[in-house]
Protein backbone atom coordinates (compact mmCIF):
# COMPACT_ATOMS: atom_id res chain seq x y z
CA UNK A 1 0.00 0.00 0.00
CA UNK A 2 2.80 2.36 0.90
CA UNK A 3 4.44 1.62 -2.41
CA UNK A 4 1.36 2.62 -4.31
CA UNK A 5 1.03 5.88 -2.47
CA UNK A 6 4.69 6.60 -3.01
CA UNK A 7 4.26 6.00 -6.68
CA UNK A 8 1.21 8.15 -6.95
CA UNK A 9 2.84 10.98 -5.03
CA UNK A 10 5.86 10.75 -7.27
CA UNK A 11 3.89 11.03 -10.44
CA UNK A 12 1.57 13.65 -9.11
CA UNK A 13 4.37 15.90 -8.11
CA UNK A 14 6.53 15.38 -11.19
CA UNK A 15 4.23 14.78 -14.03
CA UNK A 16 1.60 17.35 -13.34
CA UNK A 17 2.00 20.90 -14.56
CA UNK A 18 4.24 23.14 -12.59
CA UNK A 19 8.00 23.07 -12.73
CA UNK A 20 9.24 22.90 -9.19
CA UNK A 21 12.52 24.49 -10.05
CA UNK A 22 10.87 27.50 -11.60
CA UNK A 23 8.68 27.71 -8.53
CA UNK A 24 11.78 27.69 -6.36
CA UNK A 25 13.87 30.10 -8.34
CA UNK A 26 11.18 32.38 -9.58
CA UNK A 27 10.02 32.94 -13.18
CA UNK A 28 12.76 35.45 -13.88
CA UNK A 29 15.62 33.01 -13.41
CA UNK A 30 17.89 32.69 -16.47
CA UNK A 31 17.46 29.39 -18.33
CA UNK A 32 21.04 28.31 -17.67
CA UNK A 33 20.54 28.57 -13.93
CA UNK A 34 17.31 26.66 -14.24
CA UNK A 35 19.05 23.94 -16.22
CA UNK A 36 21.85 23.73 -13.71
CA UNK A 37 19.41 23.39 -10.86
CA UNK A 38 17.45 20.77 -12.72
CA UNK A 39 20.61 18.82 -13.24
CA UNK A 40 21.55 19.13 -9.63
CA UNK A 41 18.15 17.94 -8.53
CA UNK A 42 18.28 15.10 -11.00
CA UNK A 43 15.23 16.38 -12.82
CA UNK A 44 16.70 15.96 -16.29
CA UNK A 45 17.07 12.23 -16.02
CA UNK A 46 14.48 9.95 -17.62
CA UNK A 47 11.39 9.47 -15.49
CA UNK A 48 12.06 5.80 -14.78
CA UNK A 49 15.51 6.54 -13.44
CA UNK A 50 14.13 9.34 -11.33
CA UNK A 51 11.51 6.96 -9.98
CA UNK A 52 14.03 4.32 -9.01
CA UNK A 53 16.29 6.91 -7.40
CA UNK A 54 13.31 8.21 -5.52
CA UNK A 55 12.50 4.78 -4.14
CA UNK A 56 16.09 4.10 -3.24
CA UNK A 57 16.32 7.38 -1.42
CA UNK A 58 13.24 6.76 0.59
CA UNK A 59 14.39 3.31 1.57
CA UNK A 60 17.54 4.87 2.88
CA UNK A 61 15.53 7.38 4.79
CA UNK A 62 16.55 10.24 2.58
CA UNK A 63 13.53 12.37 1.95
CA UNK A 64 15.38 15.16 0.27
CA UNK A 65 16.08 18.62 1.49
CA UNK A 66 13.70 21.42 2.13
CA UNK A 67 14.03 24.17 -0.41
CA UNK A 68 13.24 26.72 2.24
CA UNK A 69 15.42 25.70 5.14
CA UNK A 70 17.87 23.47 3.26
CA UNK A 71 17.67 21.02 6.10
CA UNK A 72 16.91 17.37 5.44
CA UNK A 73 13.18 16.92 5.30
CA UNK A 74 13.32 13.77 7.35
CA UNK A 75 14.95 15.62 10.21
CA UNK A 76 12.29 18.30 10.19
CA UNK A 77 9.56 15.70 10.08
CA UNK A 78 10.97 13.68 12.94
CA UNK A 79 11.33 16.81 14.99
CA UNK A 80 7.69 17.72 14.56
CA UNK A 81 6.25 14.24 14.55
CA UNK A 82 5.99 13.80 18.35
CA UNK A 83 3.64 16.75 18.54
CA UNK A 84 1.31 15.18 16.01
CA UNK A 85 1.62 11.85 17.78
CA UNK A 86 0.68 13.43 21.08
CA UNK A 87 -2.36 15.12 19.57
CA UNK A 88 -3.40 11.96 17.74
CA UNK A 89 -3.08 9.72 20.76
CA UNK A 90 -5.02 11.96 23.09
CA UNK A 91 -7.72 12.63 20.53
CA UNK A 92 -8.05 8.92 19.86
CA UNK A 93 -8.34 8.20 23.58
CA UNK A 94 -11.10 10.75 23.92
CA UNK A 95 -12.89 9.48 20.82
CA UNK A 96 -12.64 5.86 21.93
CA UNK A 97 -13.84 6.57 25.46
CA UNK A 98 -16.82 8.56 24.30
CA UNK A 99 -17.55 6.03 21.59
CA UNK A 100 -17.40 2.97 23.80
CA UNK A 101 -19.28 4.27 26.79
CA UNK A 102 -21.90 6.31 25.04
CA UNK A 103 -22.37 3.64 22.37
CA UNK A 104 -22.52 0.68 24.73
CA UNK A 105 -24.97 2.22 27.16
CA UNK A 106 -27.11 3.46 24.30
CA UNK A 107 -27.19 -0.06 22.89
CA UNK A 108 -28.11 -1.49 26.26
CA UNK A 109 -30.98 0.94 26.70
CA UNK A 110 -32.23 0.55 23.18
CA UNK A 111 -35.08 2.90 22.35
CA UNK A 112 -34.55 5.11 25.36
CA UNK A 113 -33.75 8.82 25.40
CA UNK A 114 -30.09 7.94 25.81
CA UNK A 115 -30.23 5.79 22.71
CA UNK A 116 -32.02 8.40 20.64
CA UNK A 117 -29.60 11.08 21.78
CA UNK A 118 -26.71 8.86 20.77
CA UNK A 119 -28.06 8.49 17.28
CA UNK A 120 -28.67 12.19 16.95
CA UNK A 121 -25.22 12.88 18.37
CA UNK A 122 -23.49 10.68 15.82
CA UNK A 123 -25.17 12.27 12.83
CA UNK A 124 -25.05 15.80 14.15
CA UNK A 125 -21.46 15.87 15.34
CA UNK A 126 -20.31 14.14 12.18
CA UNK A 127 -21.43 17.24 10.32
CA UNK A 128 -19.23 19.52 12.42
CA UNK A 129 -16.28 20.88 10.49
CA UNK A 130 -13.34 20.11 12.74
CA UNK A 131 -11.87 23.55 12.31
CA UNK A 132 -15.13 25.31 13.08
CA UNK A 133 -15.56 23.29 16.24
CA UNK A 134 -12.02 24.16 17.24
CA UNK A 135 -12.69 27.82 16.66
CA UNK A 136 -15.83 27.70 18.75
CA UNK A 137 -14.00 26.00 21.59
CA UNK A 138 -11.29 28.61 21.36
CA UNK A 139 -13.95 31.26 21.53
CA UNK A 140 -15.70 29.84 24.55
CA UNK A 141 -12.81 28.56 26.59
CA UNK A 142 -10.10 30.93 25.47
CA UNK A 143 -11.79 34.21 24.86
CA UNK A 144 -14.93 34.18 26.92
CA UNK A 145 -13.80 32.14 29.88
CA UNK A 146 -10.06 32.64 29.73
CA UNK A 147 -9.62 29.15 31.04
CA UNK A 148 -7.34 27.66 28.43
CA UNK A 149 -4.71 28.78 25.93
CA UNK A 150 -5.70 28.69 22.30
CA UNK A 151 -2.52 27.96 20.46
CA UNK A 152 0.75 26.19 20.55
CA UNK A 153 1.94 23.20 22.44
CA UNK A 154 3.40 25.05 25.38
CA UNK A 155 4.00 28.42 26.90
CA UNK A 156 7.46 29.99 26.59
CA UNK A 157 10.07 28.23 28.72
CA UNK A 158 7.61 25.52 29.63
CA UNK A 159 9.18 22.62 27.84
CA UNK A 160 10.46 19.45 29.48
CA UNK A 161 14.11 19.56 30.44
CA UNK A 162 15.02 16.18 29.11
CA UNK A 163 13.44 14.75 26.02
CA UNK A 164 12.54 11.08 26.37
CA UNK A 165 9.74 10.62 23.91
CA UNK A 166 9.12 14.02 22.47
CA UNK A 167 5.61 13.95 23.88
CA UNK A 168 5.51 16.89 26.25
CA UNK A 169 2.99 15.31 28.58
CA UNK A 170 4.94 12.08 28.94
CA UNK A 171 8.31 13.82 29.21
CA UNK A 172 7.01 16.22 31.81
CA UNK A 173 5.91 13.29 33.95
CA UNK A 174 9.20 11.48 33.44
CA UNK A 175 11.05 14.65 34.38
CA UNK A 176 8.89 15.20 37.38
CA UNK A 177 8.14 18.71 36.23
CA UNK A 178 4.58 19.19 37.36
CA UNK A 179 4.27 22.77 36.24
CA UNK A 180 5.32 21.80 32.75
CA UNK A 181 2.83 18.94 32.87
CA UNK A 182 0.02 21.29 33.79
CA UNK A 183 0.99 23.70 31.05
CA UNK A 184 1.26 21.00 28.43
CA UNK A 185 -2.09 19.53 29.36
CA UNK A 186 -3.72 22.92 29.24
CA UNK A 187 -2.47 23.36 25.71
CA UNK A 188 -3.44 19.85 24.74
CA UNK A 189 -7.00 19.79 25.99
CA UNK A 190 -8.77 21.93 23.43
CA UNK A 191 -7.16 20.48 20.32
CA UNK A 192 -7.69 16.90 21.45
CA UNK A 193 -11.29 17.51 22.49
CA UNK A 194 -11.92 19.18 19.14
CA UNK A 195 -10.58 16.30 17.16
CA UNK A 196 -11.68 13.60 19.58
CA UNK A 197 -15.31 14.65 19.78
CA UNK A 198 -15.76 14.93 16.04
CA UNK A 199 -14.21 11.51 15.45
CA UNK A 200 -16.22 10.02 18.30
CA UNK A 201 -19.39 10.57 16.31
CA UNK A 202 -18.45 7.69 14.05
CA UNK A 203 -17.38 5.50 16.93
CA UNK A 204 -20.59 6.04 18.86
CA UNK A 205 -22.60 4.84 15.92
CA UNK A 206 -20.34 1.85 15.23
CA UNK A 207 -20.18 0.72 18.83
CA UNK A 208 -23.89 1.14 19.30
CA UNK A 209 -24.93 -0.92 16.32
CA UNK A 210 -22.39 -3.64 16.94
CA UNK A 211 -23.27 -3.97 20.59
CA UNK A 212 -26.97 -4.11 19.76
CA UNK A 213 -26.18 -7.02 17.49
CA UNK A 214 -24.06 -8.73 20.11
CA UNK A 215 -26.69 -8.25 22.81
CA UNK A 216 -29.23 -10.13 20.76
CA UNK A 217 -27.04 -13.17 20.29
CA UNK A 218 -27.68 -16.51 21.92
CA UNK A 219 -24.55 -16.59 24.04
CA UNK A 220 -25.60 -13.43 25.82
CA UNK A 221 -28.89 -15.06 26.80
CA UNK A 222 -26.95 -18.17 27.78
CA UNK A 223 -24.64 -16.11 29.96
CA UNK A 224 -27.62 -14.50 31.67
CA UNK A 225 -29.03 -17.99 32.16
CA UNK A 226 -25.92 -18.82 34.15
CA UNK A 227 -26.59 -15.96 36.52
CA UNK A 228 -23.89 -13.63 35.23
CA UNK A 229 -24.32 -10.03 36.35
CA UNK A 230 -25.74 -7.63 33.78
CA UNK A 231 -22.71 -5.39 33.82
CA UNK A 232 -20.44 -8.35 33.11
CA UNK A 233 -22.74 -9.54 30.38
CA UNK A 234 -22.68 -6.14 28.79
CA UNK A 235 -18.97 -5.59 28.85
CA UNK A 236 -17.30 -8.95 28.85
CA UNK A 237 -19.72 -10.77 26.61
CA UNK A 238 -21.49 -8.28 24.38
CA UNK A 239 -18.93 -5.52 24.01
CA UNK A 240 -15.90 -7.77 23.75
CA UNK A 241 -17.52 -9.73 20.97
CA UNK A 242 -18.57 -6.57 19.25
CA UNK A 243 -14.99 -5.32 19.32
CA UNK A 244 -13.37 -7.00 16.28
CA UNK A 245 -15.48 -5.23 13.68
CA UNK A 246 -15.29 -2.04 15.74
CA UNK A 247 -11.52 -2.21 15.86
CA UNK A 248 -11.27 -2.67 12.13
CA UNK A 249 -13.41 0.39 11.65
CA UNK A 250 -11.38 2.33 14.16
CA UNK A 251 -8.27 1.40 12.25
CA UNK A 252 -9.79 2.66 9.04
CA UNK A 253 -10.96 5.81 10.75
CA UNK A 254 -7.39 6.52 11.69
CA UNK A 255 -6.91 7.97 8.24
CA UNK A 256 -9.81 10.30 8.92
CA UNK A 257 -8.21 11.19 12.21
CA UNK A 258 -5.01 12.20 10.48
CA UNK A 259 -6.86 14.42 8.05
CA UNK A 260 -8.63 16.03 10.96
CA UNK A 261 -5.32 16.35 12.75
CA UNK A 262 -3.96 18.48 9.94
CA UNK A 263 -6.91 20.83 10.23
CA UNK A 264 -6.71 20.85 14.01
CA UNK A 265 -3.01 21.62 13.97
CA UNK A 266 -3.56 24.58 11.72
CA UNK A 267 -6.44 25.85 13.81
CA UNK A 268 -4.48 25.68 17.04
CA UNK A 269 -1.03 26.45 15.65
CA UNK A 270 0.00 23.07 16.91
CA UNK A 271 3.59 22.36 15.76
CA UNK A 272 3.07 18.97 14.18
CA UNK A 273 3.63 17.52 10.74
CA UNK A 274 0.14 18.55 9.65
CA UNK A 275 0.78 22.25 10.02
CA UNK A 276 4.22 21.62 8.58
CA UNK A 277 2.65 20.21 5.43
CA UNK A 278 0.38 23.19 5.01
CA UNK A 279 3.11 25.74 5.53
CA UNK A 280 5.39 23.92 3.08
CA UNK A 281 2.65 24.01 0.52
CA UNK A 282 2.30 27.73 0.83
CA UNK A 283 6.07 27.99 0.45
CA UNK A 284 6.04 25.78 -2.65
CA UNK A 285 8.62 23.56 -1.00
CA UNK A 286 8.09 20.45 -3.09
CA UNK A 287 10.64 18.10 -1.54
CA UNK A 288 9.13 18.80 1.83
CA UNK A 289 5.61 18.28 0.56
CA UNK A 290 6.57 15.02 -1.06
CA UNK A 291 8.45 13.86 1.99
CA UNK A 292 5.59 14.66 4.32
CA UNK A 293 3.04 12.80 2.25
CA UNK A 294 5.34 9.79 2.13
CA UNK A 295 5.79 10.04 5.86
CA UNK A 296 2.01 10.03 6.35
CA UNK A 297 1.72 6.97 4.14
CA UNK A 298 4.24 5.06 6.21
CA UNK A 299 2.56 6.15 9.42
CA UNK A 300 -0.84 4.93 8.23
CA UNK A 301 0.64 1.62 7.08
CA UNK A 302 2.22 1.00 10.47
CA UNK A 303 -1.03 1.72 12.26
CA UNK A 304 -2.99 -0.70 10.08
CA UNK A 305 -0.53 -3.46 10.86
CA UNK A 306 -0.90 -2.64 14.55
CA UNK A 307 -4.70 -2.86 14.26
CA UNK A 308 -4.41 -6.29 12.66
CA UNK A 309 -2.21 -7.47 15.48
CA UNK A 310 -4.61 -6.22 18.15
CA UNK A 311 -7.50 -7.82 16.33
CA UNK A 312 -5.76 -11.18 16.36
CA UNK A 313 -5.07 -10.79 20.03
CA UNK A 314 -8.71 -10.21 20.91
CA UNK A 315 -10.37 -12.65 18.56
CA UNK A 316 -8.83 -16.10 18.71
CA UNK A 317 -10.65 -17.19 15.60
CA UNK A 318 -8.49 -14.88 13.54
CA UNK A 319 -5.30 -16.54 14.70
CA UNK A 320 -6.13 -20.09 13.66
Amino acid sequence: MVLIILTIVFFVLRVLPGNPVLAMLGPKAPPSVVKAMEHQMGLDKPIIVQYVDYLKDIARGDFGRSTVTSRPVIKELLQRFPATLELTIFSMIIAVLIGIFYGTYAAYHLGSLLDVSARIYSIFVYSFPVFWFGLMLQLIFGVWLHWLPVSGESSPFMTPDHTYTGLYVVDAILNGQWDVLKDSLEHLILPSITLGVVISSIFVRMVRSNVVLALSSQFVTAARARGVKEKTVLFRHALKNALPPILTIMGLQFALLLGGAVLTEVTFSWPGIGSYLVSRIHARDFPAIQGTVVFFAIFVAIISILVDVINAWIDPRVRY
Partner: protein
Amino acid sequence: MSERFTNQMITSRFSAFLKNLLGDASGAMAFAGFVILTIFILMAIFAPWIAPYSPVKPSGNPLMPPSWHHLMGTDNMGYDVFSRFIWGSRMALIIAFIATFIAASVGIPIGLAVGYIGGPIDRVITMIMDSIYTFPGLILAIAIAAVLGPGIINISLSIAVVYIPTYYRVIRSQVASVKSELYVESAYSIGAPTPTIIFRYILPNVLPSIIVVLSMNIADAIMTEAGLSFLGLGITPPTPDWGYDLANGQQFLISNDWWMAFFPGVAIILIVLGFSMFAEGLNEYFNPNIGEKR
Protein backbone atom coordinates in the same frame (compact mmCIF):
# COMPACT_ATOMS: atom_id res chain seq x y z
CA MET B 1 -59.75 7.26 -19.70
CA SER B 2 -57.10 4.74 -18.72
CA GLU B 3 -54.52 7.52 -18.72
CA ARG B 4 -56.35 9.40 -16.02
CA PHE B 5 -56.71 6.18 -14.12
CA THR B 6 -52.98 5.50 -14.35
CA ASN B 7 -52.20 9.03 -13.22
CA GLN B 8 -54.53 8.63 -10.27
CA MET B 9 -52.92 5.34 -9.41
CA ILE B 10 -49.47 6.86 -9.58
CA THR B 11 -50.31 9.81 -7.37
CA SER B 12 -52.17 7.71 -4.84
CA ARG B 13 -49.38 5.16 -4.73
CA PHE B 14 -46.91 7.97 -4.36
CA SER B 15 -48.81 9.56 -1.51
CA ALA B 16 -49.14 6.16 0.17
CA PHE B 17 -45.39 5.79 -0.20
CA LEU B 18 -44.84 9.24 1.29
CA LYS B 19 -47.13 8.50 4.22
CA ASN B 20 -45.27 5.30 4.90
CA LEU B 21 -41.96 7.06 4.59
CA LEU B 22 -42.85 9.83 6.99
CA GLY B 23 -44.37 7.48 9.54
CA ASP B 24 -41.14 5.63 9.87
CA ALA B 25 -38.31 7.21 11.83
CA SER B 26 -35.65 6.68 9.22
CA GLY B 27 -37.99 7.67 6.45
CA ALA B 28 -38.76 10.90 8.26
CA MET B 29 -35.06 11.54 8.62
CA ALA B 30 -34.53 11.02 4.92
CA PHE B 31 -37.34 13.40 4.18
CA ALA B 32 -36.03 16.05 6.57
CA GLY B 33 -32.60 15.75 5.00
CA PHE B 34 -34.13 16.12 1.58
CA VAL B 35 -35.90 19.28 2.63
CA ILE B 36 -32.70 20.80 3.99
CA LEU B 37 -30.62 20.02 0.97
CA THR B 38 -33.31 21.33 -1.32
CA ILE B 39 -33.35 24.58 0.61
CA PHE B 40 -29.62 24.96 0.09
CA ILE B 41 -29.79 24.09 -3.57
CA LEU B 42 -32.49 26.68 -4.05
CA MET B 43 -30.44 29.10 -2.01
CA ALA B 44 -27.52 28.55 -4.34
CA ILE B 45 -29.57 28.94 -7.48
CA PHE B 46 -31.46 32.03 -6.38
CA ALA B 47 -28.62 33.63 -4.46
CA PRO B 48 -28.55 36.84 -6.49
CA TRP B 49 -32.20 37.41 -5.67
CA ILE B 50 -32.22 36.27 -2.07
CA ALA B 51 -29.07 37.91 -0.75
CA PRO B 52 -29.70 41.42 0.54
CA TYR B 53 -26.28 42.71 -0.49
CA SER B 54 -23.42 41.82 -2.76
CA PRO B 55 -21.02 39.42 -1.11
CA VAL B 56 -17.98 41.05 -2.64
CA LYS B 57 -18.74 44.72 -2.19
CA PRO B 58 -18.69 46.47 1.15
CA SER B 59 -22.19 47.17 2.34
CA GLY B 60 -21.52 48.59 5.73
CA ASN B 61 -18.87 49.35 8.27
CA PRO B 62 -16.46 46.49 8.83
CA LEU B 63 -16.66 44.25 11.86
CA MET B 64 -20.19 45.07 12.86
CA PRO B 65 -22.05 42.54 14.99
CA PRO B 66 -25.36 41.08 13.82
CA SER B 67 -28.12 43.63 13.51
CA TRP B 68 -31.34 44.15 11.61
CA HIS B 69 -29.41 45.59 8.68
CA HIS B 70 -26.92 42.80 8.65
CA LEU B 71 -28.48 39.68 10.09
CA MET B 72 -25.14 38.01 10.53
CA GLY B 73 -22.95 41.07 10.85
CA THR B 74 -20.19 42.28 8.58
CA ASP B 75 -16.68 41.02 8.17
CA ASN B 76 -13.39 42.89 8.17
CA MET B 77 -13.88 44.05 4.60
CA GLY B 78 -17.34 45.33 5.29
CA TYR B 79 -19.00 42.48 3.40
CA ASP B 80 -22.34 41.29 4.68
CA VAL B 81 -21.86 37.92 6.31
CA PHE B 82 -25.42 36.83 5.62
CA SER B 83 -25.00 37.46 1.91
CA ARG B 84 -21.77 35.52 1.92
CA PHE B 85 -23.61 32.77 3.80
CA ILE B 86 -26.09 32.53 0.96
CA TRP B 87 -23.61 32.90 -1.85
CA GLY B 88 -21.23 30.44 -0.22
CA SER B 89 -23.67 27.66 -0.99
CA ARG B 90 -22.87 28.11 -4.68
CA MET B 91 -19.21 27.36 -4.28
CA ALA B 92 -19.80 24.47 -1.93
CA LEU B 93 -22.42 22.84 -4.11
CA ILE B 94 -20.78 23.50 -7.46
CA ILE B 95 -17.46 22.05 -6.41
CA ALA B 96 -19.07 19.16 -4.56
CA PHE B 97 -21.25 18.27 -7.51
CA ILE B 98 -18.47 18.52 -10.05
CA ALA B 99 -16.10 16.52 -7.87
CA THR B 100 -18.71 13.86 -7.23
CA PHE B 101 -19.62 13.75 -10.88
CA ILE B 102 -16.01 13.22 -11.91
CA ALA B 103 -15.40 10.64 -9.20
CA ALA B 104 -18.53 8.73 -10.13
CA SER B 105 -17.88 8.93 -13.88
CA VAL B 106 -14.47 7.47 -13.39
CA GLY B 107 -15.11 5.11 -10.51
CA ILE B 108 -18.36 3.54 -11.64
CA PRO B 109 -17.34 2.44 -15.14
CA ILE B 110 -14.05 1.08 -13.89
CA GLY B 111 -15.86 -0.72 -11.10
CA LEU B 112 -18.42 -2.14 -13.49
CA ALA B 113 -15.82 -3.33 -15.94
CA VAL B 114 -13.40 -4.72 -13.42
CA GLY B 115 -16.15 -6.32 -11.37
CA TYR B 116 -17.45 -8.08 -14.40
CA ILE B 117 -14.12 -9.17 -15.82
CA GLY B 118 -12.51 -10.19 -12.59
CA GLY B 119 -9.20 -11.98 -12.67
CA PRO B 120 -5.73 -10.41 -12.28
CA ILE B 121 -6.90 -7.01 -13.49
CA ASP B 122 -9.40 -7.05 -10.65
CA ARG B 123 -6.69 -7.72 -8.10
CA VAL B 124 -4.31 -5.09 -9.37
CA ILE B 125 -6.81 -2.31 -9.75
CA THR B 126 -8.48 -3.14 -6.47
CA MET B 127 -5.12 -2.96 -4.75
CA ILE B 128 -4.49 0.48 -6.18
CA MET B 129 -7.95 1.68 -5.29
CA ASP B 130 -7.69 0.29 -1.77
CA SER B 131 -4.43 2.13 -1.22
CA ILE B 132 -5.96 5.43 -2.19
CA TYR B 133 -9.02 4.64 -0.12
CA THR B 134 -7.15 3.91 3.08
CA PHE B 135 -4.88 6.91 2.74
CA PRO B 136 -6.16 10.02 4.55
CA GLY B 137 -8.39 11.69 1.99
CA LEU B 138 -7.84 15.24 3.08
CA ILE B 139 -4.07 14.90 2.89
CA LEU B 140 -4.27 13.46 -0.60
CA ALA B 141 -6.56 16.27 -1.67
CA ILE B 142 -4.20 18.79 -0.13
CA ALA B 143 -1.25 17.34 -1.95
CA ILE B 144 -2.99 17.33 -5.31
CA ALA B 145 -4.48 20.77 -4.80
CA ALA B 146 -1.02 22.02 -3.92
CA VAL B 147 0.26 20.92 -7.27
CA LEU B 148 -2.70 21.89 -9.38
CA GLY B 149 -3.27 25.25 -7.85
CA PRO B 150 -6.51 27.07 -7.19
CA GLY B 151 -9.53 27.22 -9.46
CA ILE B 152 -12.87 25.49 -9.46
CA ILE B 153 -11.91 22.70 -11.81
CA ASN B 154 -8.61 22.06 -10.08
CA ILE B 155 -10.14 21.81 -6.67
CA SER B 156 -12.91 19.61 -7.94
CA LEU B 157 -10.31 17.34 -9.46
CA SER B 158 -8.30 17.12 -6.27
CA ILE B 159 -11.39 16.14 -4.34
CA ALA B 160 -12.60 13.80 -7.05
CA VAL B 161 -9.44 11.69 -6.94
CA VAL B 162 -10.03 11.01 -3.26
CA TYR B 163 -13.51 9.64 -3.89
CA ILE B 164 -12.97 7.60 -7.00
CA PRO B 165 -12.16 4.49 -4.96
CA THR B 166 -15.42 4.87 -3.03
CA TYR B 167 -17.50 4.48 -6.16
CA TYR B 168 -15.23 1.82 -7.51
CA ARG B 169 -15.62 -0.31 -4.41
CA VAL B 170 -19.36 -0.01 -4.08
CA ILE B 171 -20.01 -0.78 -7.71
CA ARG B 172 -17.49 -3.56 -7.88
CA SER B 173 -18.85 -5.41 -4.86
CA GLN B 174 -22.40 -5.04 -6.08
CA VAL B 175 -21.41 -6.28 -9.51
CA ALA B 176 -19.56 -9.21 -8.02
CA SER B 177 -22.60 -10.30 -6.06
CA VAL B 178 -25.12 -9.64 -8.79
CA LYS B 179 -22.92 -11.37 -11.32
CA SER B 180 -23.37 -14.69 -9.63
CA GLU B 181 -27.12 -14.33 -9.47
CA LEU B 182 -29.06 -16.78 -11.51
CA TYR B 183 -30.73 -14.35 -13.82
CA VAL B 184 -27.43 -13.06 -15.04
CA GLU B 185 -26.27 -16.56 -15.74
CA SER B 186 -29.38 -17.24 -17.72
CA ALA B 187 -28.96 -14.07 -19.72
CA TYR B 188 -25.43 -15.14 -20.42
CA SER B 189 -26.53 -18.57 -21.48
CA ILE B 190 -29.01 -17.27 -24.01
CA GLY B 191 -26.16 -15.46 -25.64
CA ALA B 192 -26.78 -11.89 -24.58
CA PRO B 193 -23.77 -9.74 -25.46
CA THR B 194 -21.62 -8.48 -22.61
CA PRO B 195 -22.57 -4.80 -22.65
CA THR B 196 -26.22 -5.77 -22.56
CA ILE B 197 -25.65 -7.92 -19.54
CA ILE B 198 -23.92 -5.09 -17.79
CA PHE B 199 -26.37 -2.40 -18.58
CA ARG B 200 -29.68 -4.15 -18.63
CA TYR B 201 -29.23 -6.63 -15.85
CA ILE B 202 -26.48 -5.61 -13.50
CA LEU B 203 -26.76 -1.85 -13.48
CA PRO B 204 -30.44 -1.49 -12.53
CA ASN B 205 -29.92 -3.68 -9.49
CA VAL B 206 -26.88 -1.77 -8.48
CA LEU B 207 -28.41 1.67 -8.87
CA PRO B 208 -30.25 2.09 -5.54
CA SER B 209 -27.14 1.93 -3.44
CA ILE B 210 -25.56 4.50 -5.74
CA ILE B 211 -28.01 7.17 -4.70
CA VAL B 212 -27.15 6.67 -1.06
CA VAL B 213 -23.45 6.72 -1.78
CA LEU B 214 -23.81 9.81 -3.96
CA SER B 215 -25.58 11.75 -1.28
CA MET B 216 -23.13 10.74 1.41
CA ASN B 217 -20.31 11.59 -0.94
CA ILE B 218 -21.58 15.06 -1.67
CA ALA B 219 -21.68 15.67 2.07
CA ASP B 220 -18.07 14.55 2.38
CA ALA B 221 -17.00 16.53 -0.65
CA ILE B 222 -18.49 19.70 0.78
CA MET B 223 -16.60 19.10 3.99
CA THR B 224 -13.35 18.45 2.14
CA GLU B 225 -13.76 21.56 0.02
CA ALA B 226 -14.36 23.63 3.13
CA GLY B 227 -11.25 22.12 4.62
CA LEU B 228 -9.18 22.96 1.58
CA SER B 229 -10.38 26.54 1.54
CA PHE B 230 -9.77 26.86 5.24
CA LEU B 231 -6.17 25.88 4.66
CA GLY B 232 -5.87 28.45 1.92
CA LEU B 233 -5.79 25.92 -0.88
CA GLY B 234 -9.21 26.54 -2.22
CA ILE B 235 -10.75 29.19 -4.33
CA THR B 236 -9.32 32.65 -4.47
CA PRO B 237 -10.78 35.50 -2.48
CA PRO B 238 -13.00 37.37 -2.55
CA THR B 239 -15.25 34.65 -3.97
CA PRO B 240 -17.67 33.76 -1.17
CA ASP B 241 -16.65 30.45 0.34
CA TRP B 242 -17.51 29.16 3.76
CA GLY B 243 -14.15 27.52 4.46
CA TYR B 244 -12.26 30.63 3.51
CA ASP B 245 -14.51 32.82 5.62
CA LEU B 246 -13.90 30.55 8.58
CA ALA B 247 -10.16 30.91 8.24
CA ASN B 248 -10.53 34.61 7.82
CA GLY B 249 -12.72 34.86 10.86
CA GLN B 250 -10.25 33.17 13.16
CA GLN B 251 -8.09 36.19 13.75
CA PHE B 252 -11.04 38.19 15.03
CA LEU B 253 -12.12 35.74 17.68
CA ILE B 254 -9.75 37.19 20.17
CA SER B 255 -11.55 40.50 20.06
CA ASN B 256 -14.83 38.68 20.50
CA ASP B 257 -15.95 39.37 16.93
CA TRP B 258 -17.37 35.91 16.73
CA TRP B 259 -19.96 36.11 13.96
CA MET B 260 -17.56 35.79 11.07
CA ALA B 261 -16.39 32.43 12.24
CA PHE B 262 -19.71 31.20 13.60
CA PHE B 263 -22.13 31.51 10.73
CA PRO B 264 -20.16 29.94 7.86
CA GLY B 265 -19.61 26.92 10.11
CA VAL B 266 -23.32 26.67 10.77
CA ALA B 267 -23.89 26.71 7.04
CA ILE B 268 -21.54 23.79 6.56
CA ILE B 269 -23.13 21.87 9.40
CA LEU B 270 -26.63 22.31 8.02
CA ILE B 271 -25.87 21.40 4.46
CA VAL B 272 -23.79 18.38 5.43
CA LEU B 273 -26.57 17.33 7.81
CA GLY B 274 -29.04 17.61 4.99
CA PHE B 275 -27.16 15.33 2.65
CA SER B 276 -26.13 12.82 5.29
CA MET B 277 -29.57 12.59 6.87
CA PHE B 278 -30.97 11.99 3.42
CA ALA B 279 -28.42 9.25 2.73
CA GLU B 280 -28.69 7.65 6.16
CA GLY B 281 -32.44 7.76 6.27
CA LEU B 282 -32.80 6.29 2.81
CA ASN B 283 -30.30 3.57 3.56
CA GLU B 284 -31.96 2.53 6.78
CA TYR B 285 -35.41 2.77 5.32
CA PHE B 286 -34.61 0.37 2.52
CA ASN B 287 -32.31 -1.94 4.43
CA PRO B 288 -33.22 -1.80 8.09
CA ASN B 289 -30.62 -3.04 10.54
CA ILE B 290 -31.11 -6.50 11.99
CA GLY B 291 -31.49 -6.56 15.74
CA GLU B 292 -33.27 -3.24 15.80
CA LYS B 293 -36.81 -3.59 17.01
CA ARG B 294 -39.14 -2.60 14.22
